[in-house]
């Protein structure tokens, strides 16, 4: 089973807002804020590795530049991916989700012979959740989002798709796109052997020319959406702390205050 995992390398989204500044409609992290594989993309890698361990095949990680995404791909290799490809070209800069999906789709097409394409459910920086749909539509494949479990029966995938009340069992034939939710797997921590092998690995870079992409369809030129403005919403702190000698007293005071506020 050949699996492609699309990953995004993003600034640590758990860093406090104070560690980002807004510059020209972009978020710029403070120096020292680490980049990491986006939330749920690492879970997608883990899901791919588990499928491979069960059914054989190979796992390829791909990521759309910038060049620093190479470190994210190294991490994917250290976790156990068989190969990685960096997609980097000045023409890709400032791509929106549509441009990104177009580049990833072209790369997947170039890789050929793919049974399953995994992505995270949404990137942790922009939280859009669009790219998986774009890849599926560009490649004409079915897509399932968001998945918390995937299994391969030998002829089809059974994907557990989350919905409000629980999950649905969806049968889908390969090749297909599945966007993974965080529950799908717990990403492994790479072994040192993996880290060492990854540090020696060569990661090829594919450009627009390599992918046969018309630069007018991607990057700034190919955008369907634009960012007008970024800002930080204000949160006002107004917490009233309930204190007391013991839990009973605290509980009684809290209940009293909630009643005064007509919340009970």
């Amino acid at each position, binding site marked *: 089973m050949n699996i492609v995992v699309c990953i995004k390398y993003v600034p*640590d989204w758990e860093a406090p807002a*104070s*560690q980002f500044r807004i510059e020209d409609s972009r978020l710029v992290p*403070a*120096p020292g804020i680490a980049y990491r594989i986006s939330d749920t993309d690492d879970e997608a890698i883990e899901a791919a590795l588990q499928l491979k361990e069960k059914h054989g095949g190979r796992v390829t990680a791909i990521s759309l530049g910038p060049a620093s995404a190479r470190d994210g791909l190294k991490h994917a290799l250290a976790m156990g991916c068989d190969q990685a490809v960096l997609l980097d070209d000045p023409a890709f800069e400032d791509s929106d989700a549509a441009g990104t999906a177009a580049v990833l789709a072209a790369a997947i097409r170039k890789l050929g012979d793919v049974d399953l394409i995994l992505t995270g459910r949404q990137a942790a920086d922009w939280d859009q959740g669009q790219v998986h749909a774009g890849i599926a539509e560009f490649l004409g494949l079915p897509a399932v989002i968001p998945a918390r479990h995937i299994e391969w029966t030998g002829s089809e995938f059974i994907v557990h798709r989350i919905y409000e009340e629980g999950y649905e069992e969806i049968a889908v034939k390969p090749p297909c796109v599945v966007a993974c939710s965080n529950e799908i797997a717990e990403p492994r*921590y790479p072994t*040192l052997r993996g*880290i*060492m092998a990854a540090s020696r690995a060569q990661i090829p870079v594919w450009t627009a020319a390599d992918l046969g992409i018309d630069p007018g369809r991607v990057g700034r030129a190919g955008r369907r959406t634009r960012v007008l403005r970024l800002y930080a919403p204000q949160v006002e702190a107004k917490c009233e702390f309930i204190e007391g000698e013991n839990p009973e007293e605290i509980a009684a005071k809290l209940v009293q205050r909630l009643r005064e506020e007509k919340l009970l």
Partner: protein
Amino acid sequence: MDLPHKESFFNIGPERYLNYLFALIALVFVGYHIYRRYRIWRLGKPELRFDRIPARVSLILRYALAQLKMPRDPWAAVVHYGIFWGYLLLFVATTLDGTTYWLKTLTGYEVLVGPTYLLYKALIGNLGGTLALIGLLAAFYWRLVIRPPRLRYQTEDWVILGLLLFNVLNGFEVQALRLAMTDLRNHPEWAYWAYGSYPLAVILSGLPDSVLRPLHWASWWVHVLASQFAVAFIAYSKLEHIIFGPLNIFFRSLEPRGTLKPIPNIETAETYGANRVPDFTWKQLLDADACIRCGRCTANCPANLTGKPLSPKKIILDLKAEMDRAGPLYLRGRQPDGPSLVGDITTDDELWDCLTCGACMEACPMEIEHVPTIVEERRYLVLNEGRIPRDVVNLFNNLERSGNPWGYPPTTRADWARDLGVRTIAEDPGADYLWWVGCAGSYDERNIRISRALARILQAAGVRFAILGPEETCTGDPARRAGHEYLYQILAQQNIEALNRYGVRKILTACPHCFNTLKNEYRAFGGFYEVVHHSQLIAELVETGRVRLERPVGQRLTYHDPCYLGRHNGVYDPARLALTRLPGASLVEMRLHRHQAFCCGGGGARVFMTETRGHKRVNHERTDHVLAVNPNVIATACPFCMIMFEDALKTRNLTDRLEARDLAELVAESAGLSLK
């Protein structure tokens, strides 16, 4: 000849020389056993333990001969001193006896005559027998009546005790029979010196020679056979500790107790950590053979005492069992399959429970080094297998990404000191001390208060110090102790590079974990510093009057020894000295203090892990020790201890009667300095 003497081989004919054959057979058994085990140790990796021979000889004198750890358990002391010294004297007696015989036979010269003989009989032979008898009888009482839970009660233990007791009694009987036929008749005044067998000799003297002679002959041979059997039994029982114990003590690490060794050539190694026999060092394998299964390690293990699966004894004995099972196969060039030592036999949970507090090593009479072995097995889990608890993965990720265990932004590391006028080493390269603040002191709200108190003390005392600021990262201690040697080395190299760039010589730190790492473990990577713990500097400032303690603080204090300051580095007194100088305060000691102090529960990266196993949390247990001496302040000198105590006091609603305070806070308050 009428000088006191003894007729060697009295009543034993030429068959006497068979005695040497039996001795030789016994020694062959023992020798072959040592050789077999030696070959298994040689499967292990190299490790330098042949340096500083005088210090090692001193170890032998203190821990193998004087057995300085024995008195910690009075019963064990009586039993072991009795048996050990008794049998040692008996061995000397037999050796002297044999030497005398051969000297006399070959040269005609007799050594053991006259008063020398009588003293030999009284102070070597009979004293030895008597001591051994006392020790053995005490052993039976201890095991049958007192029944300490830390001991095991297996057939082998009873066989050994029975055999030793039989040999002592049998020895007295042989001597008594001889005395009854010789000294008692000719020179009764010589016989008193054999006070151990004299009463029996008097009783037996009424019997005719026709009974005494054959009885003596038979008893003598029984004694020879039983003794040589006991010698041979060394090879088949825990008696092997007679050989492996002193050997292990001789080869003990001479580093401070908590110091771990780097993985050599980590970039090119094939496997990491230890799981198979050849993955361990020869000394770690020797450790396993030196184990006498006394259970002191487990009886002192805070994880075990709070109901967790970890038992340091089991860790060591699991390794020994693996050596027994797989060692011979490796020697025959085979790769053994079957269960994995780490995972199947020693479980992951056991390994993750370890606090690396070193209580096991401190307790072990054989100087077994449990903690480095446990860390080596953790290294296997982390670096080789990637089997890591989620909390530890988070720890590693945070250390990697942010250089601190909680994932706070590195840029805000020095924010705690923003309004205090604390300078960075870049701003003041001539500072006397580089103050290593550490992650807890930089980011943890509770420990920031301690950093601020210490900053004010240093400023008030006119100490010229500087911090690294955002250039500081975690020393790597939690990563290393959680088994991630690679991450540790990356952090260590980064820090050493920064420290050396500023030409730092002298480091001050309030964190015992940083203290241990900077002082003992950075050396292996080219970082040589004089490292001072804040308790040491504060004690000096108080003693020299540079800080004046004027206001009363606390009334009844107890001091909790941080493992990495006390047991691991032998720093017990400075904090106590400063605490006793606090006006109006009295210092009470908990039952377990100084080298026996009980871990707070935060060592070995456990402060960053959820405590899920066991019937009690370690910090709650330690808090019970505190409550037992009823103080109103627990004084600490370690940020992790502080975090663990704060947690215990809050979750147990004890904050109204008991406070956890760092030494620096108490001193700052007493000196009238701001605590804000």
